[in-house]
């Protein structure tokens, strides 16, 4: 049959195209040359941009590059969606000789563990997760310490007593931040209410903006967020309300609106871990560092807007957190129904904090189920 003949002819040509492209481009021998160096891989959930969660991680990566110079080679892959695609990227990094791999988003947890099982001699560090393995450590900042301090500023600066919070996913890490912010604000202004809008995405400037506008339209006059982009700060600046940024100092996006920001500093941590691996000292650990460890810093407070007594109050509380005389989740704490859940004189343990799944008094609405 003529049709069949042509079909086979077609198959042959297509096969030839595959084979020719295969042979025409021999594998480069570049990989062998860099065998001596420690290759460190980073997987990012959003584009690096110039502010935000991923941007801060990338500052840490650059610090590693600077500190170790020729001894290490770093590589990052940005904008990797959480889920099945992440597994492929992590695996490709491991396969291409990266001995230490940082995966920097909660949704990478299961993919990281899956890949780690297959590459027992490689080291993995997963940020914000709760599962560890022999070659998988986790690391996290005590974001809530910064949140509490920014809450104090928000509580002092609000006139409408209505604070807004644009949040990503209802996981403990985020809920903890909302609670700490609320407790901080309530400590100086018992009348405040916090409104939360969940956008179910870490990075979506469009939704972040819509949620910010909705909050401001509903009377919020100090806005903060646990999402990645600069959209909330920009929106606040446009609408003439205050913003407290997260991850990075975003003051250049809202010179008037930006009061301060809870920023993450990964430089020290990343250099330490890389050093451990270089010296064969690395062990799987669950690291949770705060202000004291230099992993959390407040961005410079906007003193044009914030009165100096408030700044002093924040500095005092910060000192107390560092020296351990104060804990942001220190009793008495009431839940939304007004029932005391942490008694005066005690504070929540790390285990309680890691599994936090309730709102404290002062937050409106419910956590989505």
């Amino acid at each position, binding site marked *: 049959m003529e049709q069949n003949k042509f079909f086979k002819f077609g198959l042959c040509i297509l096969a030839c195209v595959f084979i020719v492209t295969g042979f025409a481009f021999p594998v480069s021998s570049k990989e062998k040359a860099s065998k001596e160096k420690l290759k460190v891989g980073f997987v990012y959930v959003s*584009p690096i*941009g*110039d*502010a*935000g969660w991923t941007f801060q991680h990338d500052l840490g990566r650059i610090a590693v590059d600077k500190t170790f110079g020729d001894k290490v080679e770093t590589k990052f892959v940005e*904008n990797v969606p959480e889920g099945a695609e992440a597994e492929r990227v992590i695996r490709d990094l491991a396969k291409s000789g990266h001995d230490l791999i940082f995966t920097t988003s909660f949704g990478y947890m299961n993919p990281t563990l899956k890949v780690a099982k297959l590459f027992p001699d490689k080291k993995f560090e997963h940020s914000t997760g709760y599962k560890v393995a022999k070659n998988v450590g986790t690391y996290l900042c005590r974001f809530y310490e910064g949140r509490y301090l920014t809450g104090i500023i928000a509580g002092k600066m609000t006139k409408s007593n209505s604070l*807004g919070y644009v949040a990503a996913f209802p996981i403990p890490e985020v809920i903890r931040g909302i609670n700490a912010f609320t407790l901080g604000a309530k400590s100086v202004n018992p009348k405040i209410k916090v*409104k*939360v*809008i*969940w*956008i*179910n995405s870490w*990075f*979506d*400037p*469009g*939704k972040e*903006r*819509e*949620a910010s*506008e*909705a*909050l401001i*339209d*509903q*009377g919020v006059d100090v806005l903060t967020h646990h999402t990645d*982009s*600069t*959209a909330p700060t*920009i929106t606040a600046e*446009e609408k003439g309300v205050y913003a407290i940024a997260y991850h990075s100092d975003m003051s250049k*996006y809202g010179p008037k609106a930006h009061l301060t920001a809870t920023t993450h500093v990964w430089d020290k941590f990343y250099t330490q871990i890389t050093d451990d691996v270089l010296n064969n000292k690395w062990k799987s650990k669950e690291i949770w560092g705060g202000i004291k460890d230099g992993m959390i810093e407040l961005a410079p407070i906007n003193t044009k807007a914030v009165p100096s007594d408030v700044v002093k109050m924040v500095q005092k509380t910060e000192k107390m957190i560092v020296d351990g005389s104060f804990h942001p989740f220190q009793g008495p704490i009431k839940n939304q129904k007004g029932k005391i859940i942490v008694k005066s004189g005690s504070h929540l343990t790390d285990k309680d904090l890691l599994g936090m799944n309730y709102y404290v008094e002062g937050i*409106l*609405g*419910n956590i*989505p189920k």
Partner: protein
Amino acid sequence: MNIDILLNIFVATIAAGTPLVYAALGELITEKSGVLNLGVEGMMLVGAISGFIAMAKTGSLVFAVLCGMAAGILMSLIFAFLVLTLMANQVASGLALTIFGIGISAFIGIDYTSVALKGIPPLNIPFLSDIPFIGRIFFSYDILIYLSLVLLTGIIFFLYKSRAGLILRAIGENPKSGHALGFSVIGIRYLAVIFGGAMAGIGGVYLAVLYTPMWVEGMVAGRGWISIALVVFATWRPLRVIAGAYLFGGVTIIQFHIQGFGIEISSQFLCMLPYLATIIVLVIISRNKNTIRLNSPASLGTTYHPATN
């Protein structure tokens, strides 16, 4: 809830609906000529990144809009060449255009990701926008929103009052008789597709330059598909398109506001409503020959072969 919040929701809804107004009005004209272009999402994205880059480089909104339109037109020309000149399948060509547009826009925009633009404040027409209530409802928008209303008026006039509009509709109904009357079916359809591309481009520019204003990969986020749904939902009538656009745009605004009020309705459920409503409308108008003739362009989606005449 007080009147101010309602007002704010109203104003935000108009803004959220505007990209849909542009894209859907463009697609309406394309479809009226009998061509179904499923590439709206891709055209919007390419328009968005082109306008965004133009805005970032020059700071001129007019230039950004022109660049977005040009990009949309270029994209639509690929489609037009395939389906009109080469007589390719419209569904496949449109899908290819969307897939291509998502890719190429992300590619061009790689250096512009999370670059912040200086927002352009709304016009706030002096005196008028200060009138309580009315000022906010009518006179507090940005220029592209007013322009979209001008466009709507123009399209209504064009379709129902002008000879050119009559010809366009005739060709959408029956290209063969249009040809017999001496009109260039292919030429007119080219113009209709290009118009659709230009409008999708403006829709994208609005989104990237005025609404968000930021560029992110895939930021049109399904609005192109919603626009296609909208044309069907509006049974190919311009006034209903604009009403539907605000209705569908309102869905995105409402889902955040109800969260702020502490009401629990899943956002996914709200997002489904436009699509479900469109299917229902489609069933209602398709159920018999008369209603379908009254509403949809009869030759929609079918390839016209000039040679077979």
